[in-house]
């Protein structure tokens, strides 16, 4: 029998603790233990990207990591993207560009786009397409999602320029 392990994970800036079985998946820790149900499970087979979070700043499919692997690390989920009750410019852009219909893929899309913009503030269309290649959307059809990421880049750059 495997015993429970204590883990400490900084989730969206807050130190969280858990007693987990080593086989507990990170996505289940976030959803079931912490109640952060913004991170979705679409395929559970590392294909759809709905479960994408950032671990130490790098995008990860959280259905394909154990919670114990996040011990001592930092996780950002979609709940951590808005700040002070204000949508992040990326989220605003998703709304304005109609980049979601059912919204199932959206948390993962937002996290993948956030990762892209953190590394590349001026992505080309082909770089955007490549960045979300690990995220499947069954209804919006990608074009509006790509438009939203472009619009978000513009918003963020304008904002940066204004500072």
């Amino acid at each position, binding site marked *: *029998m*495997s015993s429970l*392990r204590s883990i400490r994970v900084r989730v969206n800036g807050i130190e969280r603790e858990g007693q987990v*079985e*080593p*086989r*507990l*998946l990170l996505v*289940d820790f976030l959803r079931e233990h912490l109640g952060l149900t913004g991170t979705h499970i679409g395929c*559970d*087979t*590392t294909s759809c*990207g709905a479960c*994408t979070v950032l671990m130490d700043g*790098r*995008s*990860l*499919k959280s*259905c*394909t*990591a*154990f919670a*114990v*692997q996040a*011990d001592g690390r930092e996780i950002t989920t979609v709940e951590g993207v808005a700040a002070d009750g204000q949508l992040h410019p990326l989220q605003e852009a998703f709304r304005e560009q109609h980049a979601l219909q059912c919204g199932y893929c959206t948390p993962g899309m937002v996290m*993948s786009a956030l*990762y*892209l913009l953190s590394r590349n503030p001026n992505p080309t269309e082909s770089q955007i397409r*490549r*960045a979300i*290649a*690990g*995220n499947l959307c069954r209804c919006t059809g990608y074009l509006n999602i790509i438009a939203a990421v472009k619009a978000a880049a513009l918003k963020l750059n304008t904002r940066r320029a204004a500072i």
Partner: protein
Amino acid sequence: MFPARFDYFRPQTLEEALGLLQEHQGEAKVLAGGMSLIPLMKLRVAKPARLIDIGRLSGLDGIEARDGELAIGALARHAPLEESPLVREAVPLMADAAGVIGDTQVRNWGTIGGALAEADPAGDWGPVVLALNARLRCLSARGERFIAAREFFRDAYATALASDELVTQVLVPGPGPGATGAYLKLERKAGDFAIAGVAVQLAVDEQGVCREIGIGLGAVGLTPIKAVQAEAILRGQRLSEATLADAAEAAAREAEPVSDIRGSAAFKRDLVRALLRRAIEIALRRSRGEQVEAGHV
């Protein structure tokens, strides 16, 4: 879906990891990026009783040129390998391959050592290390040994590694003067494994004679295949149309594809011919200093 129960260890040092592997030999598996192992555990195809997480061991993810070799730590992840200026400059085919593995999330966490140890017949690193005549540095509590890429792949998902052994480094011989290469794969859809993949490393002298050649084929056999007959046809020859056609023919014969959902065996043989010609073409253009994209067809 969740895996069967297991005990989890996260050793702080390489020595500790090797000790645990020896102690739990046969019952333990190491966890690196988890991008192959965790999906298999969730399907309960893999049910290791113990998991030794080496993902955070320090000093195993370096990418550096030393003693005429490029030394790549087993924990180097696909994404940094794609982005490394050193890799792109010295061995562009490695950057090509790293950039077409899975998707961003997979490239962010999957490691070269894990991919080689997994020995997926359709993996992208296999043909690359064969084309480059790389060696794998392997370590166990019993000691160290070096395994040539050609000796490493034994069968589908099976390698020459003992169950208490780790790959710690991939050692790529420093490319000779003018040597360069390219990797090309065709896949059905974004992020998929290859229908077929071809890696080429070559050097051509001022007279247009091929001085160095390495060719690796992926997804067309139980293991990645070093196309030694095609290499022999090209080595020491001018790369004329007739010679290239002969080499493509030889590589297609050396391939051992099977028909499956990704395509018929005949189609895959055709792909080997076409990808080899194109990869050589790209390598030649690169050797003339041109910037050419590769990776995907």
